[in-house]
């Protein structure tokens, strides 16, 4: 079965794709920290903050349709959180944008702020994972001091999540092929629990076989890897441009809403 991978554009080639994963990761974390720390009345200047990740996405030739689709997929939780704001904070605030000015509640302002920050930070994350192979990202995290055991776990998770999804999809297909009618809530629940149990047992089997395959190749609880990372002039240029961009926003982009 084929899956829509979130990193399916990470295998393209572009100047952004060729940047060191560590550099991209560090710049993204710093940039996101600045975005998150903006005050609630910074809705409009968040659009200036969106230019950075937007530029990375465009130069990495990542389709914007894909980007917005991913944002929508993960948005329900944030939407619930954001849309609850107008209900608990009804303090009136005056909003002005150029010659226009009007009054809304602080709850609505907070709601817009959460959604805008969510969109910008999601663009950052998608820009990172769509221009960096997951393996390079893991290697970069390892080089940045994240314990090897944790990056190895993430590597195994990335490797086997698709295998487990495949198994689950095959089971669902097999169940659909044999049940044309709704069997009632209790029976459906019983079937679902049996399927989850079966998936769990199969996962244990898989884990045992992986363990055999690892030990068969001399694994002795210590992860070793071939490092292929190097930082070049393009990485330093990216760091300098990112620093100028973030500092310029911090110094000159002041909230225009009051």
């Amino acid at each position, binding site marked *: 079965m084929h*899956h829509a991978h979130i990193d399916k554009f990470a*295998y393209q080639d572009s100047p952004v794709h060729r940047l060191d994963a560590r550099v991209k990761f560090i710049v993204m974390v710093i940039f996101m920290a600045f975005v998150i720390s903006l005050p609630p009345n910074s809705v409009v200047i968040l659009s200036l903050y969106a230019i950075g990740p937007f530029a990375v996405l465009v130069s990495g030739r990542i389709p914007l349709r894909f980007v917005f689709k991913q944002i929508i997929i993960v948005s329900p939780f944030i939407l619930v959180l954001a849309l609850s704001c107008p209900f608990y904070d009804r303090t009136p605030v005056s909003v002005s944008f150029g010659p226009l000015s009007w009054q809304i509640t602080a709850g609505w302002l907070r709601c817009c702020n959460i959604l805008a920050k969510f969109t910008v930070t999601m663009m950052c994350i998608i820009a990172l994972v769509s221009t960096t*192979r*997951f*393996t390079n990202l*893991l290697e970069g995290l390892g080089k940045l001091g994240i314990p090897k055991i944790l990056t190895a776990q993430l*590597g*195994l998770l*990335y*490797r*086997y999540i*698709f*295998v487990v999804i495949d198994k689950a999809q095959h089971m669902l297909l097999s169940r659909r092929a044999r049940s044309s009618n709704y069997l009632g809530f209790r029976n459906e629940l019983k079937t679902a629990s049996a399927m989850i149990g079966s998936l769990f047992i199969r996962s244990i089997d*898989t884990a045992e*076989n*992986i363990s*055999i*395959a*690892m*030990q*068969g*190749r*001399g*694994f*002795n609880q210590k992860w*070793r*890897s*071939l490092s292929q990372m190097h930082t070049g002039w393009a990485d330093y240029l990216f760091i300098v441009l990112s620093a100028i961009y973030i500092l310029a926003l911090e110094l000159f982009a002041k909230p225009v809403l009051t």
Partner: protein
Amino acid sequence: MTSAIEIKDYSYAYADGTAALKDISLIIEHGQKVVLIGPNGAGKSTLLLAMAGFVKGTGKIFVDGIEVNKKNNKKIRGLIGCCVENPEDQLFMPTIYEDVAFGPLNLRLEKDEVKARTRQALETVGLWSLADKPPHHLSAGQKRAAAIATILSMKPGIITLDEPTSSLDPTCRNKILRIIRELPQTIIVATCDMNFAAEFAEHAVLIDNGQKTAEGEPQKIMAEEQLMTSHGLEVPWKYRKSI
């Protein structure tokens, strides 16, 4: 000179007491291409695991003259490359390249040597151009070839393969056959694909119900219809009498 594998009266039972292997004795010489044939649940895979020291039964197994036991596990796994049945289990690293490099890295070889071995193994199975791909981007045949490359990069003297042709179309099956037939190592394949076994083997061992039932030249064993059908197998096309 020692044999590649020597098994003396080896028995193994699962935790619930079910006998998986009963008094198996077997000698495999260096460079031999051997098939373990038998129906599903005969004990072929368990025997392969026993050779690499993954299951512990009674009796003795020697790999290149070294007894398989806990003390010698490290040495044994340097001598014998064990490829499990499902390539999804064999390929556990995020990319094919890293997977093939995993074994040589654990042998603590120099990085240049690891890179050279990885490239050579991937070229042998025709997957060098896909080295940076994650395993879930490969076809079933490519995954199987990559699983074999993970063993080749360790350069073991003996290779065991469990059902290497399961779920493969004829083209992929023939490719795997071509790859492993050309390898200089001792190769032991557990399979119930009789046509593959007939094409590959120089020596055949029939196992059923945990026991060695017959052993000898492939034609002698596999051409005997009565023997094959009584053990849930079939005579391969190669040995069928023309109608």
